[in-house]
């Protein structure tokens, strides 16, 4: 599998489709799990993933190699996820309370969820975080990305990300322990 600089060199040489195919081959699975961390259904994650790759394909001509390919792709995916979260919140807001399904119920109804009670509580607590804290926590805790990488993805300072992670951690701890 090609590395990012080889893919970029391929793209610069004019073979855009091959470069895109290499991006898909290299990142599709990892990107699926990145998106899945924020979505409680496989179908939603699949839709967001498709939209993300369409965005990548359309935005590829504007990629100048100033950022790393990996962080550029993650940024596009993260924006797609944030848009999805906003739409979800708006839809929940507009849905009558009797028809709105709580997150835990949706999670349990998902046929692809295979976690235990502790994982359910953790995911439910993460879902209640504000978007930025949720992003930072998921990328740091589940994806184990460096703060430097998250900082490039989210265009935010490392100090601010560390503070967001700490706040998220405290909120999750409080939520899980039921204080």
């Amino acid at each position, binding site marked *: 599998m090609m590395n990012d600089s080889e893919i970029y060199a391929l793209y610069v040489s004019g073979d855009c489709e091959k470069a*895109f195919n290499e991006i898909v081959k290299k990142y599709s699975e990892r990107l699926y799990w990145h998106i899945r961390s924020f979505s409680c259904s*496989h179908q939603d994650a699949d839709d967001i993933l*498709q939209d993300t790759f369409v965005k990548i394909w359309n935005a590829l001509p504007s990629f100048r190699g100033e950022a790393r390919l990996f962080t550029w792709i993650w940024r596009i995916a993260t924006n797609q996820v944030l848009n999805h979260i906003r739409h979800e919140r708006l839809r929940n807001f507009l849905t009558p309370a009797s028809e709105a399904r709580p997150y835990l119920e949706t999670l349990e109804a*998902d046929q692809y969820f295979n*976690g235990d009670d502790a994982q359910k509580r953790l*995911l439910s607590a993460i879902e209640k975080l504000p978007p930025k804290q949720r992003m930072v926590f998921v990328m740091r805790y*589940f994806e*184990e990305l460096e703060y430097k990488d998250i900082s490039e993805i989210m265009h935010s300072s490392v100090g601010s990300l560390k503070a967001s992670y700490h706040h998220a951690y405290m909120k999750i701890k409080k939520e899980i322990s039921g204080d």
Partner: protein
Amino acid sequence: MKKLPYDVPDGYFDSLPGRLVSVCVERRVRNRLLYVGVAACLAIAVVCGFLFSGGNRAADADYLYGDGGLAVSGLSADEVYEEFLYSDLIPETDPDLFFYDGSAEYYPDGTDEAGAGNDTLMIDDL
């Protein structure tokens, strides 16, 4: 990366790259068709606009030029429109600037320096 508590359908990741590439190609073709469709609609709208504005223009000319209209006798419909165009160009605050340039002196009371008033350009002369 920590393992998330989710499964995926059987063979999902095997078919994923091929499916994503075909979705992107499909959407690109669809977007191009959409752009072509929008461009065609705009072109049709412009053509219809010309056709319909022609009809309105005749009706307007009739209103201006016909019986009981604005009675601009001796002017064709095009000339009537030209009059309106000129009137649009004349500045409201200082209309004389439109008719007189710096080459001729202008005295608002209709007289020149010598008081004869013969060489003064008047609006009626134009």
